[in-house]
């Protein structure tokens, strides 16, 4: 058990951690935007090549790859898979004409 009264040092550290989390969140959102932009571009390229937008084989390969990456990083792979299914879904909808 820790002391119930928080000391100033740990409160300052908590604030630092929260600022760092916000910075990482900003980065994550920026990365998502970049990923979506690339997704839209691959959508255009698929259209030019006469390929279908929906490509379950590719989606399954993407999910499998990130599952392995997550496992190697010591992260629980099931929640990471869930997150990436959401991202893959966002990307698919963006390719499909930007409907969200």
């Amino acid at each position, binding site marked *: 058990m820790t002391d119930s009264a928080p000391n100033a040092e740990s409160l300052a550290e908590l604030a630092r951690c929260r600022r760092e989390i916000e910075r990482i969140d900003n980065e994550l959102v920026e990365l998502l935007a970049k990923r979506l932009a690339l997704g839209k571009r691959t959508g255009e390229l698929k259209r030019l090549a006469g390929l279908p937008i*929906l490509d*379950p*084989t590719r*989606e*399954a*390969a993407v*999910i*499998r790859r990130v*599952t*392995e990456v997550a*496992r190697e990083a010591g992260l629980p792979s*099931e929640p990471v898979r869930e997150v990436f*299914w959401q991202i893959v879904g966002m990307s698919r909808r963006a390719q499909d004409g930007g409907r969200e």
Partner: protein
Amino acid sequence: MIIITRPNVSDAEIDHIRERIESVGMRTHLSRGEHRTIIGCIGDESLLHEVPLRSLPGVESVTPILKPYKLASREFAVDRTVVRVGGRDGFATFGGPTITVIAGPCSVESRGMLIETARAVRSAGATMLRGGAFKPRTSPYAFQGLGAEALRLLADVRTETGLPVVTEVMDTRQVDLVAEHADMLQVGARNMQNFALLAELGHVRRPILLKRGLSATIKELLMAAEYIMANGNHDIVLCERGIRTYETATRNTLDIAAIPVLKRETHLPVIVDPSHAGGDAGLVAPLAFAAIAAGADGLIVEVHPDPENALSDGDQSLAPPAFATMMQQLEAFAAATGRSFGLDTPSAWAVA
């Protein structure tokens, strides 16, 4: 369709099996047990015809699930699901080694009555608080609940007593508001087949208490659970609360057989509402005893500090002393089924 893997299956083999299934546009759900792992296939099973599932490395057997519910079916999970509710101020579990009793007023009438009831039921052994904020009354002229104000009172009382809170959500428009205040969201009997609401609750990160409809079959109840699960939320507790029959001596007929049938059909926890089932305070204790004896994982009981003057459902509400007596008598029934009351320890939760 479920795939049972060989005992020594590797992560890479599981990844490969899942990739092959997902390559045809289906999704997978993994259930890991100590001795075996089940990969459940979700989606249009006709797509699987082109996948040579039985010859994939790591696959021991492939079994079709012939029932219309898949995610909710007993076959889909290696172990029974344990649903954990609450966290910040206290928590309760359903489906683990202990029996959880939810108690509280039919509807939240005031702060004073809510805190008084919460303290009384907690000291009697209840580990969760119920209280209606939005009340689906049969008559439009009856008391409809305090709404958002009641949600705030419930959250306050949770902080004061440590009892996680369950309350009903009636409409898709209320889901965010209720999820913000309550630890568990209840779907009432009249909304069991409100598929828009069920789908919305699939996206919520809160456990759901799903009550059986007045005229719903067990299959329909499980299909309603499947609806929530298919949309992403797997934390569901089912509740038998009596069904409509030709009998008029009781408000509803408690379907005791539904408990063992559900236990056979699904991995989800099952609790019983003896208050609505009988509609009579005098029937609550005997129906509760029967429910626990039949293997229910918990109870949800209406308790009011002054049932005579309750704004709703006074006839079926227990006063706190009667509730405390019932809780004492229940211990013998719980012990007879190898269960006990109270909070699961964190370690019990981890292995359950």
